[in-house]
Structures are given as C-alpha cells and as structure tokens.
C-alpha cells in the first residue's frame, strides 16, 4: 500500500517537474539586487534623505516655507511672508553628488556633497551615506571682526543610515555634528551634536507620508526647541512635490536642526513645500 502511495507521488512529482522547465536550472545565479527608491526625494521632510541626485542628472529644488500660522487669517495662515531656498545639485555617478544652494533666511549660501557608502541589497541590510555642507551667512553685520569670512562659516556633517523595510516603509537615523566657526554669545556652543530620526510610509504608489525630527545630544540653552516636520510626498512623473507642516522656517541644516522657533501651543508652525524637478544632461 505504502509503495503504491509513494509510486503515485513520484509519478505526480515527475509530471509536475516536467512542466517546470525552469526548475531544471538550479538557481546558482544569486545576483546582488540593489534596493532603490528608499525615499522619493533627496529630503525626507526637512532632513537629508539617503537619496542622491541621480547619475548624470541635474536636480533643481525649491524649498518654500511660509510664515507662522500663529497670526491666523490676518496673514492667511502665514502665506504672506515666506522663506525660500533654491538648490541645484548634480549626480556624477550613483555614489557622488555635489550641489549648492541659497537661502533667503540670513542670506545664506551653501555648498554640499553627499556620498553613498553602501547600498542596501539582498546581500546587505543598510544604505549609508555621508553628507557634508559648508554654510556662508552673508547678512550684513556690525563689527569688522564678525564680517570676516571665517566668522561667517558653519559646517554640517551627517552620517545617514537608512533601511527600506518593505516597499512602503523606510526608516533613517542621522547622527549629526554642526560646527559654528563663530557664535554670537559666548555661552553658545560652537559644536552641537544631535541624532535625527526620519521615516516614510507609502499611502499609495505615488503618495507617502513622511516625518523627521532631531534629538539634541548634550545641553542647549533654554530657548532651544526640538525640530520636527511632517509631510506628504506626491510624485508626478518628473516632479516630486513635498507638502509639509514643520516648526522651523529655515531649510539649511544649522537652521532646521538647531534653530527651530515654533511650538504647537500658539500654532507657531509653518506650512511649506519642496519641489524637485529633474533634468537629464
């Protein structure tokens, strides 16, 4: 009886196997398949994402933050006064991108690079990158000393560690070091450390909800507020729109990480959007 049963199974199995020609080739070709599109844009909300400008591609980004919503209808939820930052960046290859930006907040120019160190794949669990930026504040100043170029410089350094958990959830951790060459008040620190957290959840194929925030390491003065941002990514072909609510108005690193101004209490928060347009060169 047992034999017949076995015979029967063998027969079925051999029939089945005959159907599946592809099974004849044992799968020795375990290629490395890199994970792509951990985030849709180079920013999560305010924070830098693991994504670089794509190779041989020029990306133009406008970051627009309206005024505080605290005044209500008087200035239409802050729509009357806005801060804006333009950014142009280029991807030389999948691992290197360079760019420059200019923000109306404190008339700040910045130059930055993002370098991919590793890409998440079926063989490696994490994508990692370093981000480095030099900011030059060009606002007019009182003293000759503070007017000097070296006293206008701020350096931002970040290590970005991200993982796309599945097609809809991605998370990122960002240890951050910000160095001011010169500080206005002696009690202010020149070196500021923090850890950022960010993530996204895809609602549909083209829309995701994102958030990021930075936790300070070490002490800050009493005016310090922890920065945060919540927003949507909306993708339409060659554009990515990012709509957000955040408690910071500046959109360069030392502004949005260390100089958050708003709180939820007085609706001291800002509506904003980022637009990314991609040009193939």
């Amino acid at each position, binding site marked *: 009886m047992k*034999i017949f049963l*076995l*015979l029967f199974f*063998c*027969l079925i*199995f*051999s029939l089945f*196997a*005959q*159907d*599946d*020609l*592809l099974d*004849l*080739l044992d799968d020795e*070709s375990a*290629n490395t*398949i890199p994970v*792509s*599109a951990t985030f849709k844009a180079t920013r999560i909300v305010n924070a830098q994402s693991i994504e670089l400008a*794509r*190779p*041989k*591609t020029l990306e133009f980004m406008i970051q627009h933050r309206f005024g505080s919503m605290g005044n209500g209808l008087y200035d239409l939820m802050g729509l009357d006064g806005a801060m804006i930052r333009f950014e142009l960046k280029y991807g030389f290859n999948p691992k290197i991108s360079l760019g420059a930006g200019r923000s109306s907040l404190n008339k700040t120019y910045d130059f930055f690079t993002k370098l991919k160190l590793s890409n998440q794949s079926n063989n490696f669990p994490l994508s990692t990158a370093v981000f480095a930026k030099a900011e030059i504040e060009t606002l007019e100043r009182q003293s000759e000393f503070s007017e000097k170029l070296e006293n206008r410089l701020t350096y931002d350094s970040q290590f970005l560690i991200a993982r796309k958990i*599945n*097609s809809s959830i991605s998370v990122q951790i960002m240890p951050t070091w910000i160095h001011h060459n010169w500080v206005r008040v002696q009690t202010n620190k020149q070196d500021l450390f923090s850890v950022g957290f960010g993530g996204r959840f895809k609602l549909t*194929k*083209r829309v995701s909800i994102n958030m990021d925030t930075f936790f300070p390491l070490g002490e800050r003065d009493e005016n310090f507020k922890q920065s945060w941002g919540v927003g949507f990514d909306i*993708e*339409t*072909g*060659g554009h990515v729109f990012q709509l957000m609510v955040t408690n910071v108005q500046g959109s360069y690193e030392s502004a949005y990480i260390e100089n958050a101004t708003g709180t939820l209490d007085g609706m001291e928060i800002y509506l904003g959007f980022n637009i990314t347009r*991609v040009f*193939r060169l």
Partner: protein
Amino acid sequence: MKVVSISNLLTNSLVFNRRRFSLGLLILILSQPLTAKDIYFTRSGTISFFSTAIIEDIEAYNKQVTCVLDKENGSVAFQVPILGFIFENALMQEHFNENYLESEKFPTAIFKGKINDWELIELSEKDQEVNLTGEMTIHGVTNEFSEKGFISIKNNKIDGTTQFKIIVADYGIEIPKIVRNNIAKIVDVNVKLSLKKK
C-alpha cells in the same frame, strides 16, 4: 530464545532495508526522464522594449533572461528578472520598478509554453519561422500568449529571436492620466537568445 530474537531482528531490518532500497531505485527510475532530457538553456538572453508616446520614447534592455528549451518535445520557458531592466534615465528606471511593474511584489516575468508542431520542425542553420504558444505572466497577471519567432541551430547552439507587442493594460499595469502622453499603451518587445546544451 535470545539467538532467535536477534536473528529475527536482523531479518526484519534486512527486509526493511531491501524495501527501502527498491523504493529508492523506483524513485531513481521515475525521475530518470528529468535528467535524460535534451535541454538547451541560457541565463544571459537579451530582452529589450521600446515604446513611443507623444512626449517621449522609452527604451530599456535586460541581459539576464533565463530561457530553457527541451529539444525533445519543444517546450520552452523564459524567466526575466524585472529589476534587470536598464534604462538610460535612472528616474524612469525607478518609476518602472516602483510605480508600474512593482518589481518588489512581482520580481519576475515568466513565459511557459511550447513551440507548435515541434515534431515537424527540422532545425538548420537557416532561420525558421515557428509559432510559440503558452502563458505569459507579467506583474502577477497571466495571459494566453501566441506569437511568431525564429529559430536556428549552429555549432550546437540554438539561436532564437522573437518580436511582439504587449498591451500594458492586459497585465494590470495602470497608467495615470497625468502621464498618458508620456507612456504608450502598447510596448514593442524584442527577444534574442543563444541557447547552449546543458
């Protein structure tokens, strides 16, 4: 008493082993056709597609096509890793995988079928027109598939080519209104293979 029981045990285990042995032999015999087949295959076939729409042309190629042909009965199978498609435009490639083919959910496209009237076909160095029929699975959707192809044999290598059109909507791939002028509804596909004996 002791001796008997031991000898009993011995014969029992012998019988058991013999039965097991004969079963093993049976399995071997039954699975024989699997290994005795006249199989030709490749892992590096080329597939490319081209679509032309009002605003832009889209083109991509993939050199990781697996194809298996059973020369005894003419049955064929293809397997295409979707993530292996390379576009000139990295953003297009990302959208292709993320928004259209959803390649994390559906990592491969598969065709399983046969070459019609295989018994009547005599392979030669000349390209011969053949008909392929079977089932094509793309984006998790399976459709009947029947197209022409060309096949030839040279230096014990079987070369095959085929060209066909795919209607994107047949495979549940949605094109949103906003990019309707960028993405064609019908895509031209080219396949080129060179199979060697396994």
